[in-house]
């Protein structure tokens, strides 16, 4: 099982690389013609991650944790179970660990080997999370990378990078912005961004 594809493959008759769009269409044809895949099942997978499973789920988890101290305690102790209380579970969410950012600690998540990401709470990863530059550099110079991404972390704050190299999936519980004390979950949810739940952004008050 050590054969790899030939890097000189995927060329058309003129020697140009065939676009992945055309090759995806070709593979779908080859498999559907033989009844090996059902395009309707594919449509359902796509719709699930375009509409149903996305960062809004994670925002709901965070808003509940900010407004319910008992839920927050459960979330930090047993992340997977506490997240499931809100109905969020599924592929790439077998074991979710939640870590809290504070005045003294800033957690940031990466997967250096691929792009492992907690799908049930955040959906599919954004482009920057899959960028080789992010994967390579955030485990070597996180403060600099975060600054480039617009997330300044003070020198007195300890940075902890979480490299998801196995099946553990990490979710960051960001700091609640000052001035939002007393907000309801419904008022907090629109403020909570995906990027803060991975640890590359702070959340601002409205």
């Amino acid at each position: 099982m050590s054969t790899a594809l030939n890097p000189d493959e995927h060329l058309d008759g003129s020697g140009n690389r065939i676009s992945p769009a055309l090759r995806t269409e070709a593979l779908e044809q080859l498999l559907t013609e033989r009844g090996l895949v059902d395009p309707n099942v594919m449509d359902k997978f796509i719709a699930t991650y375009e509409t149903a499973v996305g960062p809004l789920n994670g925002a709901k988890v965070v808003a509940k944790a900010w407004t319910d101290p008992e839920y927050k305690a459960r979330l930090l102790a047993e992340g997977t179970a506490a997240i499931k209380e809100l109905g969020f579970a599924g592929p790439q969410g077998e074991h979710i660990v939640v870590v809290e950012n504070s005045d003294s600690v800033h957690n940031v998540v990466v997967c250096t080997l691929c792009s492992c990401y907690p799908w049930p709470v955040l959906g599919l990863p954004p482009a920057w999370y899959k960028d080789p530059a992010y994967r390579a550099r955030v485990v070597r110079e996180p403060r600099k990378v975060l600054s480039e991404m617009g997330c300044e972390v003070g020198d007195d704050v300890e940075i902890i990078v979480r490299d998801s190299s196995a099946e553990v999936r990490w979710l960051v519980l960001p700091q609640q912005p000052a001035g939002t004390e007393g907000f309801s979950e419904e008022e907090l949810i629109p403020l909570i961004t995906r990027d803060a739940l991975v640890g590359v952004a702070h959340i601002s008050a409205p």
Partner: protein
Amino acid sequence: MRRDCTGPTRRHARAAAVIDTRAPGAPGLRQKGVVCMDSVADLGGATGWGKVSPPPPQDQDPPFHDAWEGRAFALTLLAMGRVSGQNLDAFRYALGRLDSKSYFDDDYYGRWLNASELMLVESGIIAPGAVDARARANAGESVEQPADPEPNKPDYAPTAAGSLRQVEEAPRFAVGDAVTVVTDVESDANKLPAYVRGHRGVVEAIQPAHVFPETHARFLGENAQHVYSVRFTSTELYGSDAEPFELTIELFDNYLQDKENAA
């Protein structure tokens, strides 16, 4: 297996610059024998990639930027299990065996597509070159399309759903134990990033036991084992000039040296 840095990954032009930073005596690295990555996917700690772009607002960064990306995503989910008879770890192993163009040049879901093709070819579901031939025929070229091969799916079935398993024996290490990461790995299907190999850390948490990707990816057994979140200082990983931070990574039991050797 111990791999030297003139191995197959040298062929990957983009990875070559990276490997040099890992050579013994490279600035800022502790000399602990030759340590280099086993796959094009092992990017952690690599230099030369330039800046990370500031993220756009999430409503301007949808999961799929073009329709084909969603099709490639869905095809992969079906290909890795039902169609090829393989599994998620085999998919990750296939990603890591791609040539550098197939890994980097076709965008993220193109990489998934290419790994799916590799798995489907190896399971005898589609013929080598069949995808290219069909794409070229669709574009109007006159191309002979290869016949379907004889299926050759692996003799594999999971013992349970998902990746988490119960392991009877107690974990070798406790929270707070100092541990040292191995430098040698058994195969190129490993999940041990080069940047932590040979380094000393502390067990921060014992995670649920998982199937072991290195054997699971090659259908050699689930070999479920304990997984530890191990915490390292940046100076341990990159030397005294490193930016100050700490890092945790999940390491399988096989990737930690014996206790007596860890001191």
